[in-house]
C-alpha cells in the first residue's frame, strides 16, 4: 500500500530566529521556574509526578497496614496523623476512606496523567518530531503552573480538620454532595473539585499544544507514517483528553452547583440527618454517566503513552523493527475511538436500563481485540531479536506482562452477567491496578530509565535499575495477583475491615501477604529515587546516543539547549524502526540518514525514493511510498 503525503516546505523552519532566541540572557527564574522550554517543563512534571507517586504510595501502605494487620496498633502514626488515629490506636474508618480516595485520585490524575503524559509528551514530542519547541511555549508553561496550583490545592486538602475528600476517587453523589453524609464531603470535597477544575485546565492546555505540535511542527520528511509510535500514542492521548476532560469539568461544575447553590442535578428523594432535603428530580446516575464518560477514556489517557513508550523501547532493545507498525497505530486508533463508547460498563448494576448493559457489554468486549493485537505484536517483536536487558527494557517487558495479566480479567468484568458478582470486589481492584495502574507505572519507569540520558546528560546506574525492577515486578504481582482470589471470594472493596461478616472472614493470610508485598514494593522505590537523583549529578556521562536508537532526539547534543538542535533541524528520510536491516553495516539506521547513503540495505521501493531526497528541501515535494 503506497501512501502519498505531500508537503510543501515554505517556512516550516524558523531555526535562524530561534538561534537568536537561544542566546538571550535568561535568569534563574525564566530558566528553571517559569520556563517555556519543553524539556524543563517535562522535568517539572516529572519531579512533581515523582513527589505525588511517593505520597500516593505511602497513603496506600497506610491503609494496607489496616487491611493486612487489623490488630496492629497504629499509635506510632499519631505524630503524623494526629486525631485520625482513634483512642484505641486504630485508623479512623472515615480517614481510611479518605486515604483510599486520595490514593486513587493522586495516582490516576496526578501521577499517571500529569506525571506520565505531562513528562513524556512534553519531552519527546518536539524532540522526536523535530521541532524547536512546543507550538506555544507560553501555554505549555501555563499548563504546568495550573497543574502546580491544582497540586497545591489537593495537597492542602490533606491537612484539613475534616479530612480530604472521602467518597472514593469516583466521588459519586449524593455521598460527595452531602457534608452530613461523610466528613470528607465538606471542605475537603470543595478543594478536590477546585483542584480537579485546575487540573482539567492544565490538561487541556497541554493537550492542545501536543496535538498542534504533532500536526504542524514536524520536521522535513517526518510524515505521519514516519512518526515513532510514542508520538502516535501521545497524539491519541491528547485527543482523547481534549474530548473527554471537558465532560468531567461539566460533571464537577454541576456537582459544585448541587453542593453550594441548592440545585438538584444529582440529588433527589434524600432523607439524611433527620430531615428530608428539598432537592428533587435529580439523578445520581447522571453523574455516573458524566464521570465515566471521562473516566473510561482516562484509562487510555493513562495507558496509551505507556504503550507508546514501551513500543519504542522494546524495538530499540530487541534491535528489531516493531512488528506491525501500522497495526499498532490502527489498534491504538481503534482503542481510542472505542474508549468513548464503553463507559457504562462501570455501571452494569447501578439500575441502568439492562438494554444499555447489553450494548455496552458488546462494545466493551470488542476492545479486547485491538488490545490482543498489541500484545501479539509485542511478543512477535521479541521473536528472533537480539535482546539487551537495559532497565528500560525490563520495565517495558514488565508492562507487557501486566497488560496481559490485567487485561485478560477485563473479559470477565466486561461481561455484564459475570460482572454482577465481581463488580466492586477485589477482583476489580486487581484488574485495574494491573492493567492500568502498574502497566502505566512501568511504562513511566521504562521511559525514565530510557530517556534519562537525554534529560540529564548522564546515565542511570544499571545494577540499581535491575534491583529496582525485580523487586518492583515481583512485588507488584504479589500485591495484586492474590487480590483475584480475594475478589472471587466476594470481598467488597473500600471496606475498612471484614470482620463484621462471617462470609468475608477468611484470607487474613493473603491480606497480610499483600500488605507486606506492598511495603517492600514501596521501599524498593527508594532505590530508584536514589539512582535518579544521584545519577542526575554524578552518573556516568552519557554518550549522545547510548542505546543506538534511530529516532532523531538522539541526534541532539548531550544536553540539548533551548531550540534542541544547535544547527539546522535534521530532515527525516525513513521510518523510525530500521533496526537490523539486512545488508546494513550497523544494526540500526537513524531516521535522518537518507536512503542515498545506504544503498546496501535499501529495499527496492526505497531506492526509488532516493531521487526525491534533496539536500535543500525548500519548496520540494516529497512523495513517499514506504512499504513497511
Amino acid at each position: 500500500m503506497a501512501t502519498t503525503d505531500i508537503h510543501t516546505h515554505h517556512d516550516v523552519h524558523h531555526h535562524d530566529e530561534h538561534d537568536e532566541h537561544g542566546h538571550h540572557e535568561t535568569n534563574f527564574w525564566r530558566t528553571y521556574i517559569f520556563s517555556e522550554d519543553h524539556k524543563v517543563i517535562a522535568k517539572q512534571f516529572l519531579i512533581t509526578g515523582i513527589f505525588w507517586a511517593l505520597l500516593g504510595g505511602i497513603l496506600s501502605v497506610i491503609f494496607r497496614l489496616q487491611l493486612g494487620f487489623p490488630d496492629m496498633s497504629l499509635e506510632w502514626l499519631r505524630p503524623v496523623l494526629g486525631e485520625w488515629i482513634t483512642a484505641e490506636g486504630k485508623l479512623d474508618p472515615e480517614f481510611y476512606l479518605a486515604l483510599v480516595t486520595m490514593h486513587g485520585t493522586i495516582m490516576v490524575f496526578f501521577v499517571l496523567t500529569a506525571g506520565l503524559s505531562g513528562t513524556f509528551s512534553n519531552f519527546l514530542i518536539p524532540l522526536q518530531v523535530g521541532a524547536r519547541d512546543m507550538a506555544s511555549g507560553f501555554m505549555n508553561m501555563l499548563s504546568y503552573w495550573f497543574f502546580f496550583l491544582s497540586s497545591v490545592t489537593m495537597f492542602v486538602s490533606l491537612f484539613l480538620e475534616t479530612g480530604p475528600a472521602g467518597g472514593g476517587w469516583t466521588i459519586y453523589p449524593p455521598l460527595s454532595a452531602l457534608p452530613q453524609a461523610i466528613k470528607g464531603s465538606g471542605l475537603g470535597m470543595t478543594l478536590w473539585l477546585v483542584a480537579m477544575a485546575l487540573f482539567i485546565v492544565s490538561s487541556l492546555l497541554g493537550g492542545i499544544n501536543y496535538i498542534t505540535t504533532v500536526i504542524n511542527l514536524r520536521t522535513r520528511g517526518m510524515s505521519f507514517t514516519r512518526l515513532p509510535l510514542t508520538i502516535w500514542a501521545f497524539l491519541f492521548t491528547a485527543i482523547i483528553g481534549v474530548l473527554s476532560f471537558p465532560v468531567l469539568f461539566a460533571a464537577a461544575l454541576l456537582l459544585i452547583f448541587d453542593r453550594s447553590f441548592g440545585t438538584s442535578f444529582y440529588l433527589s428523594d434524600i432523607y439524611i440527618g433527620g430531615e428530608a432535603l428539598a432537592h428533587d428530580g435529580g439523578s445520581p446516575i447522571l453523574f455516573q454517566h458524566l464521570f465515566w464518560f471521562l473516566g473510561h477514556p482516562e484509562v487510555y489517557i493513562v495507558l496509551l503513552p505507556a504503550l507508546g513508550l514501551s513500543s519504542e523501547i522494546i524495538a530499540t532493545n530487541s534491535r528489531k523493527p516493531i512488528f506491525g507498525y501500522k497495526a499498532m497505530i490502527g489498534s491504538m486508533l481503534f482503542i481510542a475511538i472505542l474508549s468513548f463508547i464503553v463507559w457504562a460498563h462501570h455501571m452494569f448494576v447501578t439500575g441502568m436500563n439492562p438494554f444499555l448493559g447489553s450494548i455496552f457489554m458488546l462494545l466493551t468486549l470488542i476492545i479486547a481485540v485491538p488490545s490482543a493485537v498489541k500484545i501479539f505484536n509485542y511478543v512477535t517483536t521479541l521473536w528472533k531479536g537480539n535482546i539487551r536487558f537495559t532497565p528500560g527494557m525490563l520495565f517495558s517487558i514488565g508492562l507487557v506482562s501486566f497488560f496481559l495479566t490485567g487485561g485478560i480479567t477485563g473479559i470477565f468484568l466486561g461481561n455484564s452477567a459475570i460482572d454482577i458478582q465481581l463488580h466492586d470486589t477485589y477482583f476489580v481492584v486487581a484488574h485495574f491496578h494491573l492493567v492500568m495502574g502498574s502497566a502505566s507505572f512501568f511504562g513511566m519507569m521504562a521511559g525514565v530509565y530510557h530517556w534519562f540520558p537525554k534529560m540529564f546528560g548522564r546515565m542511570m546506574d544499571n545494577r540499581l535499575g535491575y534491583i529496582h525492577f525485580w523487586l518492583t515486578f515481583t512485588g507488584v504481582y504479589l500485591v495484586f495477583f492474590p487480590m483475584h482470589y480475594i475478589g472471587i471470594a466476594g470481598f467488597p472493596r473500600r471496606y475498612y475491615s471484614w470482620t463484621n461478616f462471617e462470609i468475608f472472614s477468611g484470607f487474613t493470610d493473603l491480606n497480610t501477604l499483600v500488605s507486606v508485598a506492598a511495603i517492600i514494593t514501596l521501599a524498593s522505590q527508594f532505590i530508584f529515587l536514589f539512582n535518579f537523583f544521584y545519577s542526575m549529578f554524578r552518573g556516568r556521562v552519557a554518550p549522545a546516543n547510548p542505546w543506538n536508537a534511530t529516532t532523531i532526539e538522539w541526534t541532539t547534543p548531550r544536553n540539548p539547549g533551548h531550540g534542541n538542535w544547535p544547527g539546522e533541524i535534521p530532515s527525516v528520510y525513513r521510518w523510525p524502526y530500521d533496526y537490523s536491516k539486512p545488508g546494513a553495516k550497523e544494526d540500526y539506521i537513524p531516521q535522518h540518514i537518507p536512503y542515498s547513503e545506504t544503498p546496501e540495505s535499501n529495499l527496492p521501493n526505497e531506492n526509488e525514493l532516493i531521487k526525491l531526497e534533496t539536500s535543500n528541501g525548500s519548496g520540494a515535494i516529497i512523495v513517499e511510498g514506504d512499504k513497511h
Partner: protein
Amino acid sequence: MTSLIIFLGVVLVLVILYMIYRVSSLVSIAKGYDDDKIGTANKVNAALFMVFMVGSLGWFFWYSFAYYDNYTMPVASEHGKHTDLLFWITMGVTVVAFVIISVVMFVFIYKYQHEEGRKAKFFPDNHHLELAWTIIPAIVLAVLIFTGLRAWNDITSPASKDAELIEVIGQQFAWTVRYPGVKDKELGKVNYKLIDNFGNEFGLDLTDKNSFDDFKSLELHLPVDKEVLLKIRAKDVLHSVFLPHFRVKMDAVPGMPTQFKFKVTKTTQEMRDELGNQNFNYEMACTEICGRGHFSMKMTVIVEEQEAYEKWKASQEAWLKQNPDYLKKVPNALKEAAMIKAGMQRDPGSSVAEVNE
C-alpha cells in the same frame, strides 16, 4: 529517645549503603568495567525471567487448585449457577490464552537474549499473522459475548406476576426490609417527605390502603425455590445490595428505585449441611461506598422452605399495628379497613369495641 536512636540507626544504615554503592562504583571504574558492553548482567536477567515464569505459573496453578474451596463461594441461586458456569468458561479460555502467551513471551525473552555477533531478524510485518490474531480473538470473544448476552437478558427480564415481592431499603449504615404483608401482597406507596424520626422510617403513605398490612423486618427472609423480586431503594446516599451466595448485586439509588429478581435454590439449613458448618448464615453486604460505616452494613438472610416462610410472614405484626399512633394519618373512610388489615381488629363486622389505640 528511642525514636532518636531509631532515626540515627536508619541514617547510619543509609550512609553505609551509600558508601557501599560509592565504593563498588569506583572499583568498577578502576577495573575498567564498561557499562556499554553487554555482559553477564544480560544473561542473569534473561535467566531470572525464566525463573520468574516457572515460579509464578507454578504458584498460580498450585494455589488455584489447592485452595479452590477457600476462594470460591458456593452458589445458591438459579441464575447464579448460570453466571458461575460462564465465569468458569471464561476462566478456561483466558487461562489457556494467558499461559500460552506468557510462556511464549518469556521463552522468546530468554531464547533471544543478546548474543555477540548475532543479528536480529528484520521482520516488520506479516499480514497473514496479523489477520489471524485479529480474527481468532474476535471469534472467541463473539462466543463469550453471545453467551453472556443471553444470560444477561434472562437475568434482567421482567419478573413473573406471582414473584415474591420484598423491599430492601439502604440507609447509613443499615438495611431494613419491608414485606407487603399477607393480606394484599402489594407494597404500600412511600414518599421520602413522610419519613420522620418517630417511627415512619419507610415514609409510608397511609392514604394508600396497600400500606396497612406492610411489615418491617431486620432480617431478610426468603422462600426457597420461588422467584423473589427485590425492590431496592435508598434513603440517603448510594448503597448496593450484595447477596454473594445468590450472585445478586444491585445498587440502591436515592430517587430511583431499582430491582433484581432471582430464585434461591438452597435453604439456610441445606447450605449449613453442605458446608458442615451449623453456624453458617447467608449475609447481605453493601458494595457501594456509603460512608463511615460502609463496612458494617450487614443483614442476616434466612432462607426457608416455603411453608415455613409463609408461617413466618403470617406471624409478623404489621407496621401499623406496631405504630398505632399513625392511625391518625389514615383517612377516616379507610380507618376501619386499616385496622382490620393491620391485624388490630380481629374480625370485620363483629365486636367493633375491641379497638385499642
